């Protein structure tokens, strides 16, 4: 199901949660809504779900206007951060709920429901746990139940609100892979909200980055990382050193660092340099003093200060850092920087 969001506005009292947001989601896509808390990403997801209704604008499902249709009419599967399982029902009853509440001819037979529940529990690798109560499951297992409950109604779109937010790092990682596998197996259009850029970049086909109720950029993980459209995106996606300075005649100068800034208007500007884009030595290198070295696996993190006192982090191969000592002067250069006027 393709989904179009057209110029949606939503306010809570005087606080604008969404401000003229437009977004197209392709059929079968796995899209991440990424942004800091308060950026409106959850409001956008809930608006797509039919749990919130916009003050202005349109939501279209497959070309059909569903702006004011209820969640049930839209046939969305929604997965909540805190699982929202029915505690007094067994796992199997939870999963079957969406089929059980159907009426008349729409309602599948008991045997069909049982079969479907078994299939879904197998899909999320919970087979055999149908008789348990949610309180007898771990957090990761509960989220799997919530996922299969949402999938039971064969939703036109699967929506997940910070689905792994309440889980620890290991469980999170395995559930992420699981979501990708389930998405690929079912082919259902999926949108999830996260504030964790690693999660968005690692899992999604495309990422929509929100800030202060507006979409800053939509693109593949590589696009938003390599060609950020705005300073916000550059700072939010991936690590970046932020250097304040001035652009004059196509050259950025600030914090003791000079960088080519072709096509950037003269005036105050902000340069973003990713730690792993910095190299020791090279052309147009700037001077810095090494303050600290910390080795993490195959790479070494170098904390340096420039001649103007700006603190910068660089990441180099571990071997390159082996003969460096703290306090030593260094030359650093970068082939890539993102410079935005402020």
């Amino acid at each position, binding site marked *: 199901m393709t989904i179009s969001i057209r110029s949606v506005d939503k306010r809570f009292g005087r606080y604008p949660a969404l401000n003229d947001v437009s977004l197209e989601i392709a059929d079968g896509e796995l899209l991440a809504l990424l942004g800091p808390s308060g950026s409106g990403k959850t409001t956008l997801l809930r608006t797509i*779900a*039919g*749990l919130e209704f916009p003050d202005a604008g349109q939501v279209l499902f497959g070309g059909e206007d569903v702006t004011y249709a*209820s*969640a*049930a009419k839209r*046939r*969305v*599967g*929604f997965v*909540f951060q*805190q699982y*929202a*399982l*029915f*505690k*007094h*029902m067994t796992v199997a009853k939870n999963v079957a*709920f*969406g089929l059980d*509440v*159907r009426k008349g001819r729409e309602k599948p037979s008991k045997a069909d429901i049982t079969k479907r529940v078994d299939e879904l529990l197998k899909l999320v690798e919970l087979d055999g746990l149908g008789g348990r*109560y*949610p*309180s*007898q499951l771990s957090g990761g297992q509960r989220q799997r139940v*919530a996922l299969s*409950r*949402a999938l*039971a*109604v064969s939703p036109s779109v699967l929506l997940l609100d910070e689905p792994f937010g309440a889980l620890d790092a290991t469980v999170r990682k395995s559930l992420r892979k699981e979501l990708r596998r389930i998405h690929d197996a079912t082919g259902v259009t999926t949108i999830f909200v996260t504030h964790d850029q690693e999660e968005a970049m690692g899992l999604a086909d495309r990422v929509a980055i929100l800030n202060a109720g507006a979409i800053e950029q939509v693109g593949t993980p590589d696009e938003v990382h390599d060609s950020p459209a705005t300073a916000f995106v550059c700072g939010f996606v991936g690590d970046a050193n932020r250097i304040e300075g001035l652009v004059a005649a196509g050259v950025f100068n600030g914090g003791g660092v000079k960088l080519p800034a072709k096509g950037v208007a003269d005036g105050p500007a902000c340069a973003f340099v990713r730690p792993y884009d910095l190299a020791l030595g090279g052309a147009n290198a700037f001077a810095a003093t090494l303050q600290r070295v910390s080795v993490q696996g195959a790479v070494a993190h170098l904390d340096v200060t420039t001649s103007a006192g700006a603190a910068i982090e660089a990441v180099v191969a571990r071997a390159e850092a082996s003969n460096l000592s703290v306090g030593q002067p260094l030359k650093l250069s970068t082939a890539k920087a993102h410079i935005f006027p402020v």
Partner: protein
Amino acid sequence: MGVTLSVLSLVVLIPLSAVAIKAAELSPAEFAAAAFSERAIAAYRLTFGAAFAAAVINGVFGVLTAWALVRYEFPGKSIVNAMVDLPFALPTAVAGIALATLYSPNGWVGQYLTPLGIKAAYNPLGVVIALTFIGLPFVVRTIEPVLRDLAADVEEAAASLGANRIQTVARVVLPALGPAWLTGFALAFARAVGEYGSVIFIAGNMPYQSEIAPLLIIIQLEQYEYAAAAAIALVMLSASFAMLFVINAIQAWARRIEG
């Protein structure tokens, strides 16, 4: 542990065992005659029947009250909230006199009921009214926190899965309230069985008709029939203990499921 046990013994166990010991002065035949006389049985029937009826009424209206207090904002909400606890704080005799005045045939409410052929005071119906009054907060206050904790997302989840409002309330909200509701119901029932002060003013206290068991105990005491009073008391005590045991069992069961 030692302190707990001594306090428990002094305050609870010794007086209770005194009841049993006093009742033991009677031979089995005398005990049966005192505790299960026709008049006593009528009193038990009224006490437990009216208490059950009151608990059922409270079970319905307590949920509605709790629902309104948790889910809606309305002017005067804090006053309503305080009023719910009034039966806890009010001396029961005050409540009894007030209710008797209201519901007596020429009282504020009673004068409108009399033409309809409803007699709401000085009969079993009056007993039920008094017991309903004192039991309401038990249901409201046990349901309220559970309803508050029942996150909105659970209802949203049900709605997004295609359940309509009635299905959501009937299959998701009320079952989730179930254990708390049973607890509140049992507490209101237990409280009503033991209620004395508010009932005697409105009941009319006619033997075999509107005389409750606690009053019968007092009457026996006033006639210096201590052993007979103790016999009736023992029956009430056993019933109360059985009920509290049931309440605890319900709570343990609920904890196991809710985790």
